[in-house]
């Protein structure tokens, strides 16, 4: 992190090449991996938003006589959809639970990232822009919170407030804002002394106006890249907390909770934990791959390399 923030990054505005939606589309279609990642994430979002329509069964409907059934088991009545991914330890349809679980996992990932991202970035930009004791105070806070391993810190908080959706979101957010603060501060420091900020100060713009119009657009891209990987980390963190007994309570369905509840059956009914695990893996993998692409595109040095990747002679030249 230190170097990323220390190194002066040119603004997106100043770099050449396509912009906005045109750039985004070109990036997505330029590379099959990125394309697939975006597709996967789109599917997950669709699952999350229209779970009621997509799920073939009621995710909470138990049928103890059909517990731990392997994939492709026929459902009780012939008219309904078979249990394509099998049933869990209470005879509930795993596919339907995965679809409903997408909602919880996506909401937790996005909400927590939004809260920690906005909070951390704001603190970081304020620290970098104003400097002095404000900077000292905020960065000491960051140091302190960073000295407690994050999962442990979230656990501590959850022990106090108890399990629950909002408690989980806040406890996770409480230990993930520091990186945004560090990056935001580093970026803000860079632009604080740039000519266009000097110019804005000279014509008498307010601090808030300068931050909003000049600093924020420039620091946004590293923060967005960080946020993309953070969503993945938080989806995984929810699973870890489920394991430790601090995940969401029933009737909430989450992928982490599903993996954890299938844990005792790993040797006998692998599908209970394997399918939600696989879906979680594909989702977090897509997020991480997308973040890698964004990082390459945002970095002017790598961007040219990346957008011209199809041309093989470049590699040969490099040798």
């Amino acid at each position, binding site marked *: 992190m230190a170097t990323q923030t220390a190194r002066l990054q040119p603004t997106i505005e100043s770099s050449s090449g396509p912009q906005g939606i045109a750039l985004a589309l070109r990036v997505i279609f330029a590379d099959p991996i990125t394309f697939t990642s975006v597709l996967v994430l789109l599917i997950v979002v669709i699952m999350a938003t229209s779970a009621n329509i997509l799920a073939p069964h009621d995710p*909470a409907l*138990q049928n*103890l*006589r059909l*517990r731990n059934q392997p994939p492709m088991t026929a459902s009780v009545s012939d008219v309904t959809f078979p249990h394509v991914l099998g049933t869990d*330890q*209470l005879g509930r349809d795993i596919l339907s639970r995965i679809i409903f679980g997408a909602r919880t996992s996506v909401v937790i990932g996005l909400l927590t990232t939004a809260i920690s991202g906005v909070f951390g970035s704001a603190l970081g930009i304020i620290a970098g822009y104003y400097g002095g004791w404000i900077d000292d105070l905020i960065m000491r806070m960051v140091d302190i919170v960073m000295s407690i391993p994050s999962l442990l810190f979230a656990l501590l908080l959850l022990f106090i407030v*108890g399990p629950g959706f909002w408690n989980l979101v806040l406890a996770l957010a409480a230990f993930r804002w520091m990186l945004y603060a560090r990056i935001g501060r580093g970026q803000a420091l860079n632009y604080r002394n740039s000519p266009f900020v000097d110019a804005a100060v000279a014509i008498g713009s307010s601090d808030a106006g300068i931050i909003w119009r000049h600093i924020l657009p420039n620091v946004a891209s590293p923060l967005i890249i960080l946020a993309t990987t953070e969503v993945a980390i938080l989806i995984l963190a929810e699973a870890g907390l489920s394991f430790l*007994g601090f995940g969401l*309570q*029933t*009737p909430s369905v989450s992928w982490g909770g599903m993996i954890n*509840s299938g*844990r*005792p*059956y*790993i*040797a*006998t*009914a692998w599908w209970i934990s394997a399918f939600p695990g696989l879906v979680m893996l594909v989702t977090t993998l897509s997020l991480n791959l997308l973040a890698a692409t964004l990082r390459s595109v945002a970095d002017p040095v790598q961007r040219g390399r990346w957008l011209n990747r199809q041309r093989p002679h470049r590699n040969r030249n490099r040798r």
Partner: protein
Amino acid sequence: MHKYILVAVVAVLMTALQPVQAQESVLTVAVASEMTSLEGYLASSEANCNGCINVVEPLVTRDFETGEMVPYLATSWEIVDDNTLEFTLREGVTYHDGSDFNAESVAAYINYVYDPANGLPASDSLTNVITAEVVDEFTVRIVAENADPILLQKMYTVNLESGQLITDSLDEYPTTLVGTGPYMFEEWRRGEQISFVANPDWWGNDDPEAARGAIAFDRLVYRFIPDDTVRAAAAQAGEVDIAQFVTPDACEGAADLDDVRCESLASVETMFMRMGNGGFMSDIRVREAMILAVDKELIADAIMGGTATVTGQIVIPVTTGYNPDLPPYPFDPERASALLEEAAADGIDVGQPITIASREGLHPRHDEVAEAVAAMLAEVGFNTSVEVLPPDVFNPTWSSYSDDPDQPGNWIAVHLHGNEVLDLYFSGIRYFGCDGSSSLYCDEEVDAMWEAANMLSGEERDLALREVAAVAYNDFGNGIIAHLNFSYLVSEGVAWQPQLDHRIQAKEAAPAS
């Protein structure tokens, strides 16, 4: 880092030296939880002090085949009155610290550990306070504060440590264990294991029959492996000889394995819905509907994988007061719905929200049972939700609920009750009594019957308790589901069978011949 290097070096050396060394026989047990301290009063429960029962011993013990109390460190006893027992102690027994076992040492130990003023919860588990008086060198009197017809049965949970430990080095009481047993405490490596070594001077070596076992291993190692899957895996991989409390699935899986077998045995633990007769459950139809709605057979067979026995009573059959005429409650969802509709027609709000609660880590699958119960109740028309709570949230709610007159009776806990004393009175006053510490059920007539029965002993007591059991049963006070088995994976290299109390006593195990 040092210890790690040392361990590595020792491991290499041990492999290198093994052919030369005489083979030391070790029994390795994987247990689910780690003890909190080595205070001797914890030893009566395997979960509270792993393996400690190999070190400390009681005055009398129980024969699980007959249910009778039998002599152990005491060779005989006499019931002086309702409050007093006189024990004649075995001679020639020494503690592991070399001091002699006699009336004085017994009195020194009991008078410290069972005195509530010393801040130890030992007397709570007896629900009475006991003191000891020296009569002569090998005769001691145990005196209970309150009249107690089953004081002798309770003495089964009182394990004795050296009196010298209490008088000379009290500071060490929580960190060491000095008893008279077949194995001596060696080392407790926190987070890892506790180990014991054979006691060559054990009194039982001369009298295996009275000692109910023999020393067959040089060393015992109890390893703490909290994860159910990993504990079973350790037994399958041959790393441990006995894996305690494995899931029914692990047991089923063991059927296909050559080196490992599953031992599953009923325990005193009974799974039940703590209901009571408060709030809208003061209507007997609501209570009956609730109990009829639950498919106990399905829970026992499907969720517990057959390692549970459906029952209608909170105690197991060998218990004093168990009534053989009371069958498990039937499963009848139609009647349950009908009863509920009837109650609703009489203006009872049957749709009010009910929480089905359970405590984290209670036993494998308990959370699934709670979810299944909630779904079954919802099926007949109750409005249920599920909460699996950590102990510090569950415990106070569980124990103080009945004190709060404003709380409606709609916090239903799926919980376990284990009556180790094997006398119904304890379970009765706790769950079917107005003053019971965990009771939501209150009926003054029933209370009077409990107290009357408690004045009796022997056959009369049994019959009186059976009668109260039947009254409470017909009043649908609590939703009894099933007696639980506990299961173990055991190496084929070891001959051992669990006992009803589920203590793992090495003197009952031996290398398989």
